[in-house]
């Protein structure tokens, strides 16, 4: 019983913090809009990409980028939490580490999803099916990346490593996922690398649902996304159990 109310408490806290830090929400909406309008508009003017136009083509990728940044930084923020005694006051409560991790993870997931949801309005029109599939991919990605952020954050003691995580984790994952370019006609090394990147399947799945442009079958995209998410949740839970 304590575990369930505890889980709710942790989630409730994140939601309150989210709704009160409005400047963060504004920033996280403006950022992807710049990508869509400035990057997509500029590059799209001379890139002939099918029926969707380049802006439409990169829309799933920009959606992914929003989730990626929100989720990973949410997770990494526990470095700050650990420094203030607030986190200790939660650690000393009679809830297990699994609950603590789950509460944090769901909180971050909600955060990332709400921000992505604002962006979803720019993808209208949807069919019931395409909206459902996009939402499922966004949630799986949010769970996976929040867990990754929490796992890394639980091991760090300062913000020093943050730049490295951006250079070696977020940007490669994003740029090597086919978010900004089609997956066919790539040089051989990129074919290999993109196919090893779980995010490739997430973008492909969303693009398939939205426009019917996909390289892999939907079940493979969903399967990879689900596996990615399960593995990182397990890693995060393990990291939290070890954290002192």
């Amino acid at each position, binding site marked *: 019983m304590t575990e369930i109310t505890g889980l709710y408490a942790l989630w409730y806290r994140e939601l309150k913090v989210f709704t009160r830090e409005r400047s963060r929400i504004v920033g996280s909406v403006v950022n992807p809009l710049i990508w869509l309008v400035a990057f997509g508009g500029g590059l799209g003017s001379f890139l002939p990409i099918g029926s969707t136009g380049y802006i439409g083509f990169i829309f799933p990728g920009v959606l992914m980028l929003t989730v990626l940044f929100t989720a990973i930084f949410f997770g990494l923020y526990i470095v700050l939490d650990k420094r203030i005694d607030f986190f200790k006051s939660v650690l*000393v409560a009679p809830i297990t580490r699994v609950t603590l991790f789950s509460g944090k993870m769901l909180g971050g997931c909600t955060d990332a999803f709400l921000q992505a949801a604002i962006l979803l309005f720019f993808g209208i029109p949807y069919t019931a099916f395409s909206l459902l599939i996009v939402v499922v991919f966004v949630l799986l990605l949010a769970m996976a990346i929040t867990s990754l952020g929490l796992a890394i954050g639980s091991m760090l003691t300062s913000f020093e490593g943050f730049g490295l995580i951006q250079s070696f984790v977020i940007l490669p994952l994003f740029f090597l996922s086919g978010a900004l370019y089609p997956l066919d006609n790539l040089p051989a090394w990129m074919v290999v690398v993109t196919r090893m990147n779980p995010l490739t399947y997430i973008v492909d799945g969303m693009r398939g649902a939205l426009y019917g442009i996909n390289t892999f079958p939907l079940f493979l995209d969903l399967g990879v996304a689900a596996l990615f998410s399960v593995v990182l949740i397990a890693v995060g839970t393990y990291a939290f159990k070890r954290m002192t």
Partner: protein
Amino acid sequence: MSIIETHGITKRYKNLVAVDHIDLEIEEGEIFGLLGPNGAGKTTLISMLATLVPPTEGTATVNGFDIIKKPGDVRKSIGMVFQTPSSDDILTGRENLYLHSLLYGIPAEVRKQRIDDALNLVDLKDRENDRVKTYSGGMKRRLEIARGLIHRPKILYLDEPTLGLDPQTREHIWEYIERLSKDEKVTILMTTHYMDEADSLCDRVAIVDHGRIIALDPPSALKMRIGKSIIKAKVNSPNLETIRKLPYVSKVEQKDGDVLISLNEAGSHIQEVLCNLGEASYVELREPTLNDVFIQLTGKEIRAESAEDFAQVYARANNP
């Protein structure tokens, strides 16, 4: 059985023994103080008793539960107030308490009542819907005390409860702590490096230095070790031999050009001491403090790290 018992509890870090085989028994209902300088091991000890840090050796029971085998039960039995502010300052006072009532699984039907009671206890009812960001240091500390009590724990740990607060607010917090002990019958274990705090609040005080307990008694008994009163005087050529022979003088010391004389009984003897001492340019008569006890036991001041104290010492040295 005592409500807290430690058995040879030890915490070793790489090349430091923070807590060194401490055996301690704390009785139900008392206010027990761990007094010592920063780095003495007080916070490490209290963190082990809160199951936040695992001991390297030895163990302890809290409310009858072993801290290693039954950490969950220990956590349900205790409330904890940390050294630095630990409330979520983006939330309101009431929301903070609500959050903790959920974390501690307080049943929904009594939740509201408990939160109201806790807020009233620390006089924060009128500010309950303001964000903690807008609270003063003393209010934040009071909110944390309320939070530590929300699940009606048998024991409350207070780690440096008045650190960084102004003197008026400190006394205010002391009143709350005393009230808790008297009205709510909560056992209180607190750490402090303030002598006056330990002296005025605690039923028993353990003086901790280098991870060991070097003295444990009620404050009055600790002070009795020094004597009933102390004469501190500046004398050019003190007549120490005569003074030492007086029957009611327990100890004579010379330190930094001052003479310190401890008396077993004061009263009418003070005049006699002063007459025999020689020509004094400065005399001070006072009751012994825990600070004197600490200096006698460890040979050093407890707050040697304080810049203000250093400035005073420096000023005295240069203006004889």
